[in-house]
């Protein structure tokens, strides 16, 4: 019952105060952080981190189910994806800043950030900038990439969240990915 604050925020939002959704960000961030930590600490190695499971659990824990209209959840996924993007970009920026400190300077532990790069094989900052350019002329494609790459949603889930057909998501993803790939290889 301690999470009623979030429920109230969501209710406020559902009742027409869309801005209340933004107020959820710090709460969502905190919850995701706690859950991610707990997942990663778990000893059972076979339980790999399922991104959507993480977000689902965060959602369930934050929202007293009895009180909230379900359609808010789609937007919750959107927020989570956006937060994930923000985290990676901030981290990559921080890393750049550290690098500029000079070659002989001791850097703070960067293993996390390096792992990111290995994992994604892309420059997060360059991708982020390209994605912003893409969203400027095709907002929907920007959203698809954010949900898929940063939010870890499947095509079906994205279709759900955006309220469009699977086929459309697939087409949008195909083109957006090609465009981004070309941008990043230039």
């Amino acid at each position, binding site marked *: *019952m*301690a999470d009623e604050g979030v429920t109230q925020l969501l209710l*406020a939002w559902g009742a*027409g105060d869309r*801005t*209340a959704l*933004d*107020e959820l*960000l*710090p709460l969502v*961030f*905190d919850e*995701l*952080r*706690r859950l*991610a*930590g*707990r*997942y*990663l*600490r*778990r000893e059972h190695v076979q339980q790999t981190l399922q*991104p*959507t499971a*993480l977000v*689902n*659990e965060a959602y*369930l824990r934050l929202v007293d*189910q*009895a*009180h909230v209209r*379900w*359609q808010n*959840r*789609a937007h919750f996924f959107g927020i989570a994806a956006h937060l994930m993007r923000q*985290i990676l970009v901030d981290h990559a920026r921080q890393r750049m800043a*550290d690098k500029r*400190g000079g070659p*002989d300077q*001791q*850097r*703070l532990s960067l293993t*996390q950030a390096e792992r990111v790069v290995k994992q*994604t094989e*892309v420059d*997060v900052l360059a991708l982020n900038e390209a994605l912003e350019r893409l969203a400027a*002329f095709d907002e929907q494609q920007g959203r698809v990439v954010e949900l*898929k790459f*940063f*939010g*870890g949603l499947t095509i*079906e889930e994205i279709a*759900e969240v955006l*309220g469009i057909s699977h086929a459309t998501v697939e087409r949008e993803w195909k*083109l957006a*990915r*090609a*465009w981004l*790939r*070309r941008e990043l290889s230039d």
Partner: protein
Amino acid sequence: MTPERWQQVKALFHAALEREPRFRADFLVHACGTDPDLRAEVESLISAHEEEGSFIDEPAVVAAAELLAAGESDADDAVELQAGQQFGAYEIVAPLGRGGMGEVYLAADRRLGRKVALKFLTASFTRNAERLRRFEQEARAASALNHPNILTIYEIGEVAGAHFIATEFIEGETLRQYLRRVRPDADESLRITIQIADALAAAHQAGIVHRDIKPENVMLRPDGYIKLLDFGLAKLVGLRVADCGLRNEEAETLMQSPSSNPQPAIRDPQSKNPQSTSPGVVMGTINYMSPEQARGLAVDARTDIWSLGVVLYECVTGREPFAGETPSDTLANILQREPPPLAAHLPGTPAELERIAAKALRKDREARYQGVKDMLLDLRSLKQELEFAAKLERSGVPNPRAARDPSPAADARTDENRQATTAAVVTPGRTRAARRTALFALAAVGLLLATAFAVYRFVYLRPRAAPFQSVKLTRLTNTGKTIHAAISPDGRYVAYVHSDAGQQSLWLRQVSAANDTQIIPPARVGYWGVVFTPDGNSLYYSIKARGQGGVFRIPVLGGTPVRVLSDEIDSEISFAPDGKRFAYLRGDYPTRGESGLFIANADGSGVRQLAARQPPEFFIPIFFAAPSWSPDGELIACPVARAGSWSNVIAVRVRDGHEQVLTPQPWAFVGHVHWLPDMSGLLLVARSQEVLNQQLWLLSYPDGAARRVTNDLDDYRSSSLTADGRRLATIQDTSLVTLWAAPDGDAARAAELPAGNVGFLQGSGVISTPDGRIVYCTRTEAGPAIWIMDADGSNRRQLTNGLAALEPALTPDGRYVVFAAYTPQGRNLWRMSVGGGDAVRLTGGAADYAPAVSPDGQWVVYSSLTDGRLTLWKVPVGGGAPAQLTDRLAYQPAVSPDGKWIAYAYSDLGNAQLDPKTAATRLAVMPFAGGAPTSTFDIKPSGTAQTTLRWSPDGRALDYTVVNNNVSNVWRQPLAGGPPKQITDFKDKLISTFNWSRDHKLVCARGLLLRDAVLITDAH
């Protein structure tokens, strides 16, 4: 790229891809005609598409999650430096250890050729720029102290984003290490505490409070010098300290596996020692915490006196006076328990030492030593006295004072007498005596002033009866659609916001005439607060609207609104008493997640940020939260929350941004705050940890005692006071939900059951017993509870006591009720006899929902949060191991009347998604033993669907509710297929839960949610 151009590219890209590669070139030549650029663009995109290798195919979320988790543990972002490495002007020599703030290294300063200790602050401490700035300010002030007993700070700096402090390197051991080795005698204990007190006296004189005096922060040099470490560091973690009792439990919860397997807590395997996780830091600290720190109150120099008293006690006796088995025990001891006298541990302790320790450890800081100098004088006098006595003893002269005098009479002597006696014995010199006299004179003046003030408070403040002790409540509106209300300073007008059909409008009510005037017509905007100016002539209101929001002013009697502030604003404003400035809150400013308290001039100029918070703490930026400027103009009270854990109220001093916490206990939620005109307290709209609905409370200032003003089952949203503080306007949220029974679901024959208002709890549950009684969930002051009554409303009684319980299910014989309840362990299922008796817990999952009992009475089927998704489980009604029924996501199970099938709701997406646009949530039926569904159904028609799912009484269809135009009805999906049909015909109200009785009655909870303005008058 223009969007139009992009549409062309998009169409050609997909069209080309649909063709075989060998035809694409020709296709594009034709399709692009005279536009070679377009062709080049599409071709390059196709070749990027066909490129080998993966590209952003793997989601980055896993990496992001790792980063998220890394932010959680200090261990992960610590610097790891090797001997010989260069760090700025320093060369690392060896690691010294790990402190609460981060790693400490021995290093050589290459410029000056001296040894230093380098202490790194971990990112979790430095992330908050404002806190870091204050810390540095404090550390710099401390570095200027230059006292032989204070560790010298050489440099506070930053290299490559790593914040560090370079200090004097002390060879020696901490007092903690020393105490493990040695039990010092009284003389040595005095020698140690005197040096600490001396250091503190210098610091206090410079206005610096240490806040974290403990043996770990005291170093003993081999030459006998004591050095006090870490000034100002405690402030950096101040809130954690205040929060420790909860943090510990929270830490335990965090470490629990979320699987339903109720295994014991798993400890973080990476944690090297308890100090490396944040709760550990706190736990290392709390034994020395003062009562005011434990209460989360503002601290001053007297806090250091208390902690020094604890250190003194521990030196003399070898025991920590308040240490308990758990941090909460320790806290309770600090707040309530008097430690045993020193002599209980060490017989023969000088009575004077006993008195000094006791005076430092007075729980009421007003009764404690008021300055560390006084304590220092007493400690020095005693030390000299003891030395004198020892000398006498050695010279063979009997010393009457050397004999211990444990009689109460000795303790009853006044301090002044005692000091005089001591002074006479120890310092016969005239100068010393004269100084003493002067001190006494000063003390006497101080005492006189204190007495005078106490008398003043008694005479002038006491006669006023406690405000809002007894109140009268008058309803101002009765539309059910009023969302804000503000009362004018003279109490003659109430301005309120009416919200209907997505539009909001501003109205003025003349209280005496009950006469309403529309000030601003309905529009698609969100009002985030309305206030009267202190002169009562104008209204200021905050509006949320894309691009057109801000703060507006309008004359009370109507006119043209003027925008005074175009910033995004996230609260109601609060005026300074002179009306020349106002305060407000902003969220997501200056960056996402950050929030701040701001002030601006009444015309919107001169905006200035007064306080800032970063996640997980935040100023609650929502339309039912607001700051309050104090009547003396000096403080702004403000609700602050920490995501997922607590809320409290702080006061920020307008002059310098100094903050103090006004609420000694954490609250579940605090929204609106409002100062009383005499500043004897604040009105809060809040939920306490115990009372789950949002009520009006009175928080007395400055002692922080809280008392309820309203005492009902409604929720309140705001508070607006008249200038005399006798009347307040607020919004009351009322849910009017009652139980109904409709034979065969026939709305025309529906009859209301006399259970009263059960409150709006979606899916909360109502069920009819085989003998016709009704078990239902209703809202009580302590949260939801399960009750039982006869069908005629008689024999009504509460079944679940002391548990926030909902979702009741019955065994077929009607003897047991199974339900979900919230406890600190989680949301789990419980069973109890309908006849009464103790409840037994059946499950231990992270969160267990929606129990359904099989018709044979053997099993409870339910959904449980397992590895992040809801799956179906069953557990024996009599208790035992739960067994998983589905791997896939599933919830809201219902067992068929013949016991062979389980129906449930599911979503391919992940979790409970009933999105009207996509109708993604579906229903499935599977065999009772589990396995693949034998049939699935879409939920139709669209509407705001909700979660109650039941079998039809004949077992041939599934029933659920659908909302259309604010009216709920039950729809039925035949298992044989075909479209679902509406089977009830209610014309109004929402259904929050329903069920079928054995005699085919639909029992359900139906009702409304109402929000109205009310006037609360102090009846005194």
